[in-house]
């Protein structure tokens, strides 16, 4: 048996039923778009959050007491609105034999006097924190202690059009005088919060904004002993009523839980849309089948096997599915990010530069489900055919 008409006939049928074909393909495209966008977003969210947390470069975060997850989220976001903790704790942590290294941080947002709505984010940190957090210099170097030098993230450097050796002028504010700070380094784009930050030494920052003796957090890198005694460490530092300890692996778990919820939402939303799409396809196919039943019976009567007619039906559905899924992938690539923006409000923490990752596995799944639908849609037509007798059909 030649397979030539396994393609010619289904394609001709699809062309002939233009409206029904178009609507069915659009329904499949919509289902693919929703499923691929949501699953791509969840995948990207998981990996980006993990990268952001890994980028912090430490195991524990010691902050002023409050909600631990809020503290971790704020730390990841760049610290806007954080509470302050006393710097005196730093010496105690440094002296702890379970601690490998410490990364004190002071994050301070300042209303940009040059812009009505803008906020300048100053980040006080140790020079060696650049390396530990995987930040790469595009130009220049890290600041030295008490040099009034600053390092700029790539975005703010571009925005302010500053190069190495230029001076960054900060107009006088409510509690600080006018400042002129030398740009000593510019970072490569990291896709994180540092891109929009102005980084300087903690001492300078405390001095500049009258924040003496204050920190927003201390990142703690543990040694083997520390990792074995996490609970004891947490208990010890939380005995201080001003402090709380955030265990970053638990934060990862927390975000993991959030993404699991999102995944469940994707499955539910995707399932609903797929069901809707299947119902549309099925009703369109049944409508067509009732019109074509006599034709199918005649072809069967003329010796065309049920298998051939079944395959033609499947091919018809498959062509629809391939066209619909490809359209869905295209729309996801163009509009997936915009569509998933509405999920931002649902998530506790939204990393910068998050994108919708459409991978081959997700597309294969969409095609697989589509193929299954094609077979399921073709079956009722064949069942009706197998049960038919000439006297059931008019004009035979």
């Amino acid at each position, binding site marked *: 048996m030649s397979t030539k*008409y396994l393609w010619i*006939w289904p394609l001709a049928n699809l062309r002939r039923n233009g409206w029904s074909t178009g609507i069915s393909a659009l329904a499949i495209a919509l289902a693919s778009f929703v499923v691929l966008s949501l699953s791509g977003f969840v995948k990207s969210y998981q990996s980006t959050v993990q990268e952001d947390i890994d980028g912090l470069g430490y195991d524990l975060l010691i902050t002023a007491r409050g909600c631990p997850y809020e503290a971790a989220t704020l730390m990841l976001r760049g610290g806007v609105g954080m509470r302050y903790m006393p710097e005196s704790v730093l010496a105690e942590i440094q002296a702890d034999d379970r601690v490998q290294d410490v990364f004190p941080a002071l994050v301070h947002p300042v209303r940009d006097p040059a812009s009505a709505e803008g906020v300048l984010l100053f980040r006080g940190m140790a020079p060696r924190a650049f390396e530990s957090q995987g930040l790469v210099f595009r130009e220049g170097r890290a600041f030295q202690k008490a040099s009034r030098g600053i390092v700029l993230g790539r975005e703010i450097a571009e925005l302010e059009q500053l190069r190495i050796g230029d001076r960054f002028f900060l107009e006088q504010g409510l509690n600080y005088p006018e400042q002129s700070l030398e740009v000593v380094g510019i970072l490569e784009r990291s896709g994180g919060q540092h891109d929009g930050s102005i980084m300087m030494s903690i001492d300078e920052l405390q001095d500049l904004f009258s924040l003496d003796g204050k920190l927003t957090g201390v990142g703690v890198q543990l040694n083997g002993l520390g990792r074995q005694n996490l609970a004891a460490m947490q208990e010890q530092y939380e005995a201080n009523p001003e402090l709380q300890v955030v265990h970053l692996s638990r934060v990862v778990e927390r975000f993991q839980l959030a993404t699991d919820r999102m995944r469940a939402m994707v499955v539910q939303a995707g399932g609903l849309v797929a069901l809707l799409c299947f119902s549309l396809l099925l009703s369109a196919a049944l409508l067509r089948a009732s019109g074509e039943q006599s*034709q199918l019976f*005649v072809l*069967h009567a003329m010796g*065309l096997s049920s298998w051939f007619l079944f395959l033609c039906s499947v091919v018809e559905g498959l062509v629809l599915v391939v066209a619909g899924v490809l359209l869905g992938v295209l729309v996801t690539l163009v509009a997936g990010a915009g569509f998933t923006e509405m999920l931002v409000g649902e998530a506790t923490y939204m990393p910068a530069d998050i994108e919708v990752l459409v991978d081959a596995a997700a597309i294969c799944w969409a095609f697989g489900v589509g193929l299954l639908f094609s077979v399921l849609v073709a079956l009722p037509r064949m069942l009706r055919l197998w049960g038919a007798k000439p006297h059931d059909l008019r004009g*035979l």
Partner: protein
Amino acid sequence: MLSVRGLSKSFEGRCLFSGLSLELEQGQHCLVHGVSGAGKSTFLHLIARLDDPSEGTLFFGGKSYADLGSATAFRRQNIGLVFQDIHLIESLSVAQNVEMIACATGHSLDPMTLLEPLGLGPLAQQSVRTLSRGERQRVGLARAFANKPRLILADEPTSSLDSEKRTACLDQVFDLARQSNTSILMVSHDQSVGERQDFAQRVQILPPQ
């Protein structure tokens, strides 16, 4: 080739016809006639194994229908069908309607070899939707030859043609049948068809007494 003995068919207790018999040799043609509702189409369906008889036996090529295996395979190898309502594939062209039957039944065929003799050559690439009923009937006849059958069962195949075209069309159909040594079992009401010398046999289906 075809042997029908004592064939009867009933629907829901009502006897449609009974005791029909026929012996048809390869290459011979037979006309089936009778009043409307007598069961002429049903008789063709029984021969095509689209339905089962209530009583009687059928043989094809010396074998009982019971021993012939799959009905679809039997039709694919032996039977060409022309239905009263034709039922062409509306989404395909004239040539594709013929070629698809050939391809799907495992035959290779240039559809023009069937379309040209029936005067359909110029319409070959047209969609069947644009054809008149008479032209559609001729496509139906061409299609019945596509699987190179031994027997064509044709149900009122020229009912929509005027007498001149009917005569010309049947001349061409019997020519094609002669060339391929195909038998034709034709149902027709038309007196001019009944008068043709091509039919070696005539079967009249009478309403049951």
